[in-house]
Every structure is written in C-alpha cells, then in structure tokens.
C-alpha cells in the first residue's frame, strides 16, 4: 500500500499495462515531448519510445478514429483527449464508429480502445473548457464509461478498461489529479459496471461519482459529527449503471440525493433519480433531489463560476432540507 496522487496512479497504471502488453500504445496531443498537458504520461516517451507513445497533431477526429481502426486490428490504444470538451470533435468516431462497429458488423470486429479524458469546471476555464458532458457517452450503448473518484479506483478502473475488449471511456477530473489516497502495490482491476459504497449510513443516501463523490464523502464525514448518518454511493461506472446498488442503499435509507458537477436537466442525476423512484418507490420518504450546476454556459469570472457550480454547502443544505421535510429527529 502506497499513498499516491490520482495523477500518479494513472501514470503508474499506464506504465504497468504497457510493460505487460506490447499491444498497448498511447496516443494523443502533447503526451510525449510535452509529457502531457496534465503530466499523466510524464516520462513514458523516454521509457517506451515513439512507437509506443505517439504524439499526434491537433486532429481529435483523426487520431481517435485512427485509434479505433488500430484497435480493430488488435492493438489496444489508450488515447488521451486533452479535455472532454474536445471530445466533441471526435464524437462521431466515438459514437458512430467505436460504439457501433462490434454490433453493426455482427460481432466480427472488436474495439479494445480506451479514451482517457478529464472533465470538470471550477478552474476558470470558461464556457467551452469547463464542461462534463459525461452523459453524452453514458447514454450510448456500445460504450462503457467509468469515472473514478479515488487514486485506487483510478488504477483499478483504468487497468480494467485497458484489458476490456470494448471501447471504454475513462473520465478523469481536473480537480482530482492532485488528490491523494492509498493504492495497493499489486496489480488489480475493478469491475466495470459496479458502484461502490464509499461510506455506510442510515439516514440518507448521496449518490455521486468522480469529484462529486469526493465532496459527498467529505460532507458525509462532517455530518456524521452532527449525528446525521449519510451513506455515500460512488457510481464509478456510468455505463453500465449499477442500479441494484443504488436501489439497495435507498431501500435502506429511504432518502436520496444526487450530486453532480454537470447541468441539472438531462444530466446523470436525472437517470439516477428516475431509477430510484422506479426501483425503490415504496421506500422513498422524500423526493430524490439533485444538486447540480446552474443551467448556464459556465462564466469565467470566479464569483459567477462559483455561484454556478454545486459545492459542499449546497449538498449539506439539501441533505438537511430533505431530512427536515421527513421530520428526521435531529
């Protein structure tokens, strides 16, 4: 067990998988000479050379598509898209090709591809560089989508993604790269498609993922001191979505809140809330509320940006409102 940053866990996992399997190669803008915009790939060009670490020109559609084609021939490319915002330039290749090729050709082709890309607002990157849009990929059959919240999960989910024969998006988060956590030194993978109970609790369930899960855990720990017992579910995987785990928790706590960095309408929380009201209808003592971003293109200016994004205080408030509304004995 070693304490690692989320960044280091990703880096080490890439390296380990490259050592394990010569078919694993890295592609993306500035991942080699520049060592990665967020330095996840630092040192890997020096170690593995330009055959395994391919810097690409700025052409998201072209290099993501090339990675898909290479995967169809059995390579296992791990592509970095600098931020998820730029994935929109490659989304036709991801959605209409990577996600379709296996089924549309009757199972004859597989696409063992990983796309790593960070999302997240709160860095004053303004409207076009602060999006999450995970829901674009989570909605799409044929894709698998994971969004690790901790260094340990980053390792286990990235390794699983690389060994999976389907296209997997590994959604990272700018605000998590420097966060730390214990990571087992041994190699391991985590199941894609399974959520984790980050913290047990009795009174209310908070469901989140990625950075949101980290915040939810912090809030839960703080509220524990106030005598409020919050269960935290980290989805880990957005597609497949672990509905049984969500509903099992809510059947226990009878109340649920979803926290997400994304815009509220048609966001990830919508699916979670819809799932809960169907899967745990008779157990729910209060509506599932969603704590999510205000529905505006994210402003650059710090005070406006902060106002638009959900934070621990917003979550705390909604937890208390929900408990109060159902007359939780404080």
């Amino acid at each position, binding site marked *: 067990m070693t304490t690692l940053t989320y960044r280091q866990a990703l880096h080490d996992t890439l390296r380990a998988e490259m050592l394990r399997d010569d078919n694993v190669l890295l592609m993306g803008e500035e991942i080699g000479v520049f060592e990665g915009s967020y330095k996840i790939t630092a040192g890997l060009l020096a170690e593995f050379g330009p055959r395994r670490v391919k810097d690409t020109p700025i*052409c998201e559609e072209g290099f993501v*598509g090339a990675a898909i*084609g290479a995967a169809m021939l059995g390579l296992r490319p791990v592509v970095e898209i600098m931020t998820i915002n730029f994935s929109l330039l490659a989304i036709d290749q991801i959605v209409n*090709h990577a996600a379709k090729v*296996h*089924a549309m050709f009757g199972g004859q082709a597989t696409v063992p591809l990983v796309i790593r890309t960070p999302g997240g607002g709160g860095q004053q990157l303004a409207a076009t560089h602060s999006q999450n849009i995970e829901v674009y990929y989570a909605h799409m059959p044929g894709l698998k989508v994971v969004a690790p919240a901790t260094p340990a999960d980053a390792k286990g989910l990235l390794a699983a993604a690389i060994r999976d024969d389907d296209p997997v998006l590994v959604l990272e988060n700018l605000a998590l790269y420097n966060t730390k956590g214990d990571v087992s030194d041994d190699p391991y993978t985590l199941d894609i498609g399974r959520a984790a109970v980050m913290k047990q609790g009795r009174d209310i369930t908070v469901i989140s993922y990625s950075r949101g899960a980290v915040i939810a855990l912090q809030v839960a720990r703080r509220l524990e001191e106030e005598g409020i017992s919050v269960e935290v579910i980290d989805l880990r995987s957005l597609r497949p979505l672990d509905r049984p785990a969500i509903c099992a928790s809510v059947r226990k706590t009878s109340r649920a809140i979803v926290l997400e960095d994304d815009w509220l309408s048609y966001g990830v929380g919508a699916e979670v809330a819809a799932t809960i009201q169907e899967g745990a209808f008779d157990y729910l003592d209060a509506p599932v509320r969603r704590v999510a971003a205000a529905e505006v293109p994210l402003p650059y200016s710090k005070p406006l940006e902060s106002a638009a994004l959900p934070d621990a205080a917003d979550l705390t408030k909604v937890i208390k409102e929900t408990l109060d509304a159902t007359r939780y004995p404080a």
Partner: protein
Amino acid sequence: MSDQVRTAGQTTTPDGHSDLSGEPPEPLVGYYRQMALIRAFELRAAEMYTKAKIGGYCHLNLGEEATVVGLMAALCPTDYLFATYREHGYALARGVPAERVMAELFGKATGTSGGWGGSMHLFDADLRLLGGYGIVGGQIPLATGAALAISYRAEPGERAEAVMCLIGDGATNIGAFHESLNLAAIWHLPIVYVIVNNGLGMGTPVSASSAEPELYRRGCAYRMPGTRVDGNDVLAVRDAAAGALDRARSERRPSILEAVCYRLRGHSVVDPARYRTKEETDRLRSLDPLPQFRSQLITAGILDGEEASRIDTDAEQAVSAAVAFAEDSPFPGQDQLFARTYATPVPNTSTSLPGEPLDCGPDQSDRTG
C-alpha cells in the same frame, strides 16, 4: 512526389483502352465474370428493394464495375479494405459469396454481418473486408488506424500488408479526409486512399463541391502523390492500384488514387436522378464499362459471343441462387438482440426490452408503500 494522370495500364490502344495483348487471358475473363456478377447482382438488388425484401438505404455500384473489379484485382488477400456504403460489388469481387451479400441485404442471420448491418455495412473478417460505412468519411480515420497497426507490428517489404480505403468524391470535402491524410503522411503509413470519383455526391457535381476538382491533386496539402485513372478501364485501374499498393508496402508511402467513373442510376435505389438530363443519361450509357469490356474481349479473341453470354447467364443464375438463399435463410433470433452490444460482458448491462421494468436488484424488504 508527383501527381500524374494515367488514362490506361501499361500500354494503350488507339481507342484509349488498355491493350489486352500482353495479358494472360484467364484473369481477363475472370474480371469480366466479376463485372457481370456485380451488374446482375445490383440490378436484382434494385428489384428486391422495390419488392421490399431489402430495407433502409440501398446504394448500387451500377456503372462502377470496372473500377470495383480493377481495384480488387490489385488487392492481396493479406491487405485490408475499408469501404463506403456503396460496397456490394467490392464484397463480391473480394470473394464474399453472393448468397451472403444478398442475405445481409435481406437482413438474414446468414448475411455477412449477421443481419445487423444491411446494405451499407458489409463486413468479412476472413477476407479482410473491414466494413462498409454509412457516415460519409467515417471510414477514413479507421483505415488510417489500420495502417498504423500494420506499421506498428511489421517492417515494410514486398509482401507486407497494406490498406485500401475507398472514398467518394463528395467525401473529400469532409474534415476527416484532411486529418487522416495528414496523419498517414507524417506517420508514413501503408495505405492507398482511393477516390472513387463517380462525378456526383447525391445530386452535387464535383465542380460544385470541391474547390480542387482534380481530386487526385488534393494530396498536395500533405505532399502526398496522386494518380488519376480511367475508372472504366479495369486494367488501368488494376495497374495503378497495384503500383500505389506497392509503394505503400515497400516504402510506406501513402498515396491517392482517383478512379474516374460514372454512376449509371440515382444515388440510391429510390432516387430517380431527375437532376440529370436525358443527354447526360445517354452519355453515361455509352460509357458503360460492361459492354465495352465485353466487346474488347471479343475483339481480342479472348471470348466469343457465346462464352460471354454464358458468363452473363451464369451471373444471373448465381444471383438467383443468392436470392433464393437469402429468402430461405432465417432472420436472426430475438434472443440475439443483446448478444452483440459488448465483446466483454460486464455486470449490470441492460437487457430490458421496451416496456420491461428496470432491473434494480432484488427487493428483499417486507416494507410496502
């Protein structure tokens, strides 16, 4: 690095066709056989479409037979082919049995893609036909990536693998074309981008869609050489393609090959092509490569009229057999619906049919609302 126009193969006869005299006769007959098969197949596909045996969109290679057969003649079994949605003929010439192509068009389990793809999405892993693609330009990055995989794994050489990527004239205006050709050039990938210039993208002539209408020159922005060839001349196409593939194999030099041909009918079966005048249609008929090549073979004494007619009849019969096979084949079973979404099974994948409740796990509590 030089662009060139090749109107024919090694040598040319006075009427502009490739000279057949130096060619061994059997392959030539084989080309005609393939062309006749494609022609018969496509005409029957159109008929089956109007009989609603075939659904969706259905794009035909009618008029493009010489290009199709010439290109496939140059391709080695070890090469990979990425096609557009207008690919029935390529599948046939690559060696996919007509039965399986027709069955795919009928949406049957015995089809090349098990009924999942239809007319636009023929695939044969063994024959390295890596798919027809319905998104214009979508196949170009994929093909480029396949070439990357080849160069990742093996050295160049005369017997190295290579990729052929088919691209319509209209598709040269899309971003993926630019991005991919640039990648192939800087990475020295073993790929030939074949622009099948049939003069039109749906109703739009090349001159209206491309600011450089000499499409083989569009590689200039990547220092990539280009060749234009008469797509009605099967040998010229074959030889030009073979040359380009050789450079890809041995030197890892990507290139463009433009084959100029014509679409005899509308864009798809349902398009009456009213935007073409009667004169234009007549002109296209006069350029039809099938009767041309037939009479060339007869003139050269390689076939006599009777043999040629027998080939035509054989083609008809093969297509009839294909239709019968497709007709008799079963549809894929509904139990197959969720079998294709993923190659690696993972927990919690949805397998709910429309109207089924969500799978939210066992409700073990005794509490009720």
